[in-house]
């Protein structure tokens, strides 16, 4: 790729601006450690991306504030992919070829992760994906701190089927996340002798759900599972509430709240939606309260802090812990720490431990219900493992594995 003078100047100006932002005493020796990040800071997916970008800046600032890593400063290379997959591939190339970063924390949608994962694998650049997803990625170069279906889908299905019955209607975003998550919904339902009466998929720009809402009523399920994603799909929750369905058929979601949907909807529209995940601002622990206080001090508004912003924060802090333990920023040295089972961080959402076999995280899972624009916690399961991915993936035995497993229905 040729770089024009203008691009070069912009990049140079950008990186000076970034460096100028951190007014910490420069650590004495060595050049800085480079941390690359690509996130959707604008566009259809910015409800997810913006807080993640802030969390990234905050984590890096905290690491530098505590004296950096191995006596070196961490320098952040942040790129805005503008909800455009093509920009992910472009910036991924830029991170490995021009910026030559030491680690990458990037990607929001599963489509974006799959667009860039192989680039980092080929370049031997350690890659962290810090978002809840559909599970199954088995790649030694890729570390995942978000939840998987065994953690975020199974508890919902379990609780909802006990409470409401065994007939399920699934609606999901039409790309790999939604499709594979829908399979897991069916899998966990079948394990409990339930049935998914119908599954509908929607491209990310669909905003009219009138016919779907009528079809759901016609199928008369005991509850609905939504794996909808992004700004346009918000229209579903709005139209669902506008037709009064929120009072008639219980709604659960694997994604709701992750994009702060509960803030965009009024309390009357959102109340009662059941979700499961790693983080809620209502977590009463001191670690969470201090995290929110620091966020308040740096950015002001804490209302926008959501699960995957916290995941991103966990991911960067966890990587920093690994660097300290390894005494090196080399990929192999860090992977050795991870594969010894010693990679962990105690963050705002509790303990996060990377499992050596899958490079996925064991973490605390909370069953939550939307109340008054808040995610109020019903119950917490400590240290739930990523058992879905662990069924297929053993990186200790097959370190060269490089694929994403899917559940067979």
């Amino acid at each position, binding site marked *: 790729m040729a770089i024009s003078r203008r691009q070069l100047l912009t990049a140079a100006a950008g990186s000076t601006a970034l460096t100028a932002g951190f007014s910490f005493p420069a650590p004495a020796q060595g050049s800085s450690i480079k941390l690359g990040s690509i996130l959707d800071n*604008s566009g*259809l997916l910015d409800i997810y991306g913006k807080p993640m970008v802030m969390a990234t800046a905050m984590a890096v600032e905290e690491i530098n504030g505590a004296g950096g890593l191995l006596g070196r400063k961490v320098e952040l290379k942040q790129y805005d992919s503008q909800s455009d997959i093509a920009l992910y591939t472009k910036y991924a190339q830029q991170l490995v070829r021009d910026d030559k970063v030491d680690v990458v924390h990037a990607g929001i949608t599963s489509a974006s992760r799959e667009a860039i994962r192989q680039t980092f694998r080929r370049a031997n650049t350690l890659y962290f994906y810090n978002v809840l997803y559909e599970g199954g990625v088995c790649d030694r170069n890729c570390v995942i701190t978000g939840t998987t279906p065994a953690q975020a889908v199974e508890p919902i299905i379990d609780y909802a089927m006990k409470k409401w019955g065994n007939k399920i209607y699934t609606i999901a975003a039409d790309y790999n996340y939604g499709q594979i998550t829908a399979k897991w919904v069916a899998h966990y339902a079948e394990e409990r002798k339930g049935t998914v009466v119908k599954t509908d998929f*929607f491209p990310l720009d669909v905003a009219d759900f009138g016919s779907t809402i*009528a079809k759901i009523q016609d199928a008369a399920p005991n509850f609905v599972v939504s794996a909808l994603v992004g*700004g*346009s799909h918000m229209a579903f929750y*709005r139209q669902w509430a506008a037709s*009064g369905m929120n009072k008639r058929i219980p709604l659960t979601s694997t994604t709701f709240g992750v994009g702060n949907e509960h803030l965009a909807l009024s309390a009357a529209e959102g109340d009662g939606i059941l979700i499961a995940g790693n983080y809620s601002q209502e977590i009463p622990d001191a670690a969470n309260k201090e995290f929110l206080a620091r966020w308040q001090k740096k950015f002001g508004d804490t209302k926008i802090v959501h699960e995957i912003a916290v995941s991103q924060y966990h991911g960067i802090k966890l990587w920093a812990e690994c660097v300290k333990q390894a005494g090196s920023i080399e990929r192999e040295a860090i992977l050795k720490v991870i594969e010894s089972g010693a990679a962990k961080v105690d963050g705002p959402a509790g303990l996060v431990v990377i499992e050596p076999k899958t490079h996925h995280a064991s973490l605390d899972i909370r069953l939550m219900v939307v109340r008054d624009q808040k995610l109020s916690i019903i119950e917490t399961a400590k240290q739930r493992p990523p058992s879905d991915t662990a069924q297929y993936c053993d990186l200790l035995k097959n370190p060269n594995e490089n694929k994403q497993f899917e559940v067979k229905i």
Partner: protein
Amino acid sequence: MDYLAVVLLEILYMIAFLALISAGLAVVFGMMRVINLAHGEFVMLGGYTTIASYKAGINIYVAMLLIAPIVVGAVGLLVERLIVRFLYGRMIDTMLATWGLSLLLTGLVTLIFGNTAVSVPAPIPGYQIGRYQMGGYNLFIVAVTILLFLGMWVVLRYTRVGLIARGAMLGADIVSALGHNPRIIYMLTFTIGAALSGLAGGVLAPLTGLLPSVGGAYIAKAFITVITGGAGIVAGTLSTAGLFGTVNQIVSFASTPVIGEIAMLLLAIVLLRLMPQGVTGRFFRNST
């Protein structure tokens, strides 16, 4: 039985939706033969005007039914005076200029409101048909569309202004010879077209939510509705909106909304192949 009523209501809503987003374009394209590629952005501006006014504490109905059309109409007037009036009769140049304008408007709105999805809550509660719950706001959109098209038809058919406008559309020279200035007629027509687009954007804002780039989603549907409709503004737009809305929803109910959309586009291709002059080129030839 209830289910049939639900399907019919959803079809009615889709017809109203298509007619509403096409009204402004139909007036501008039908009367002036100007292809306004910034039409989708006019609709988007109407939505943002509504949301901004609502957030400023103005009653939602005033915001969508009055402020949105007035503001977007004013933008339309400005655009006509500054850009479009120099390009009458030069179709390709107009398309280029208005396409540039659409990019500019998207950029400006992104700058002001940010590239973020925004929305207002629907002001009308749901209602019940048998065992089904329906969105009450959809009915409001249907009502607005019916009134709007009724108004357009009455004005074009039975008023002197409408007569002059239809005259200018058929033969600008003759109207000019009778002492009316076609330039002023065009200016007013473009302004009214823009105002109608603003109204559509305002009324639809509570249902769909808004992004600065949302115009792209509207313009494709508006164009196929208007072009397939042909020269008759009211009859053409309503007949194609009726056809497309029905096919879209029936297929959506039978399969998924995506396939419904595909079916609608296929139908448009077939119709244009059979009737290159549009539906009103063959049927309802003497209608408005």
